[in-house]
């Protein structure tokens, strides 16, 4: 059974007249990537601030790796790396110096970790440039580096891809997936870019007005979104037979208009195309269909603006 990294029970946070978090109970298991989805003001950052010790709950319990007393939680936080809101950086220092301060205060003896971490986030050539002269994307990368330097077991990232260009976003996604795969790092990310979150996370937690409204695995989400591969072929029946024989699936529907909706092999549309082509099936349309994560989320909360204004 997977170890539970973080568990909250009835976690609530209120500020005067605002209920920022309302009875939030979640469990995060080791080795998974969690997408934390909610509108602006839903409570995502408040939740992360409480977990990382920057704020205190009004009521409820938190436990990190089974420790629920204050001292125990504080000790366990040494195993966490995080970015909360924007990266917190020393503007008049270089990237190397920022990481050196982190290395010293974390008690990491090996100085080579700094170069390795900078290389991992693509910041090896900043030299003596001060952080105040960095672009937004560079600051974001350095923030990720600061979170990674202690090789955390649990990574908490609040909007980590803000300000990154498309290539940078892909790099971060691949890096996070590699960290998760290589080291079994548990990752908890919030982001407004839901399409990107869908490609990165394997579990999704939806929050709205301080309350957890749903928790889904990737598979459950796909089912709920009714995601499918939609294909049109000149001979739909023959195409369906090929799907059964060559791909070993009967999880499909032939619609009245002859369109086939395939609910399997969603991660490998290319394979479907190759198999059909090899069997000389003439395909006139092949695409992914169904609700995107964004559409599903908007439907869940009853509309509203997901993206940052």
């Amino acid at each position, binding site marked *: 059974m997977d170890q539970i990294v973080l568990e909250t029970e009835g976690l609530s946070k209120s500020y005067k007249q605002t209920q920022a978090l309302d009875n939030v109970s979640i469990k995060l298991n080791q080795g998974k990537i969690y997408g934390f989805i909610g509108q602006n003001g839903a409570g995502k950052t408040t939740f992360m*601030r409480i977990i*990382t*010790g*920057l*704020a*205190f709950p009004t009521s409820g319990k938190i436990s990190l790796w089974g420790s629920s007393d204050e001292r125990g939680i*504080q*000790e*366990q*936080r*040494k195993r*966490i790396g*995080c970015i*909360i*809101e*924007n990266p*917190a*950086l*020393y*503007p*008049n*220092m270089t990237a190397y*110096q920022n990481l*050196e*301060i*982190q290395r*010293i*205060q*974390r*008690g990491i003896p090996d100085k080579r970790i700094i170069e390795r971490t900078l290389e991992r986030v693509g910041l090896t050539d900043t030299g003596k440039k001060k952080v105040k002269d960095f672009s937004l994307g560079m600051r974001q990368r350095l923030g990720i580096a*600061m979170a990674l330097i*202690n090789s955390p077991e649990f990574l908490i990232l609040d909007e980590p891809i803000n300000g990154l260009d498309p290539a940078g976003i892909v790099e971060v996604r691949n890096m996070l997936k590699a960290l998760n795969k290589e080291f079994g790092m548990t990752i908890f990310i919030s982001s407004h870019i839901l399409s990107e979150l869908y490609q990165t996370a394997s579990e999704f937690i939806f929050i709205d007005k301080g309350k957890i409204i749903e928790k889904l695995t990737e598979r459950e989400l796909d089912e709920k979104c009714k995601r499918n591969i939609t294909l049109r072929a000149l001979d739909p029946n023959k195409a369906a037979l090929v799907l059964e024989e060559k791909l070993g699936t009967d999880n499909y529907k032939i619609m009245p208009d002859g369109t086939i909706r395939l609910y399997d092999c969603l991660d490998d549309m290319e394979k479907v195309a190759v198999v059909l082509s090899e069997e000389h099936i003439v395909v006139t349309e092949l695409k992914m269909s169904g609700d995107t994560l964004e559409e599903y989320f908007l439907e869940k909360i009853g509309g509203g603006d997901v993206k940052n204004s």
Partner: protein
Amino acid sequence: MLKTLKAELYKLLHSRFIWVVAVAQLAMTGVMIYDVWMREAASGFQYAIHFVSYLVFFAGIIVGMAAGDDFDTRTYQHYLTGGKGRITFAASKLIICDLANLFVTGLPILVYGVIDICNSSLHEFNKPLWEVGLAAFFSIIAVSSVMVFISFAVKSMGKTIIGSILFVIFCLGFTGVGEPGLQLASAKVIPVLQPLVISADTFDYSVPAMIFVDTIWIIAAFCGIFAVFKRAELK
């Protein structure tokens, strides 16, 4: 706490501001001492201690940049989210700021003391030199500690500097309040004014009593930091 102190020391030594402020204070002290030298034969060492009371606002700049700035940049996050306790963090800040201010404020005293020794013009205090030094040391630490409390209370570099300057001005106002006896009594217990008493060398004061009072100020400042920071909501 040792790791936190090391990290803070690294940050301090790699920041330009401490060196700029140290040179500025040394220069300002020199200008003020020169002004006195023009009018009378004077001991640079004695007057360097005297002018601490007026130039101690530089300590506010040091504290603003070493402690207050952490709240503007939110870099305290790295310590707190990394498992360091809030009190450990606050204590480290207090120690580093006090050490930095000892360096910046003590440097002119040391420099002009050496000049006096070379010129054989060192003032002969009524009290042993080590007692004079110790009293000055504690008064600087006490002032610095109050400024660190201000930084934790206002959580901003700019407000820390302004608050510290206002604190110094408020204390200096006591030198003009009431009768000379009251002025002297208040000067002995207010760390900003103590260098005036020490350097004047004409008043009867007890160094242990002064150190005791400064220790109370330091403890009070730390308790104040604890009160405002222990459960503060941070971004």
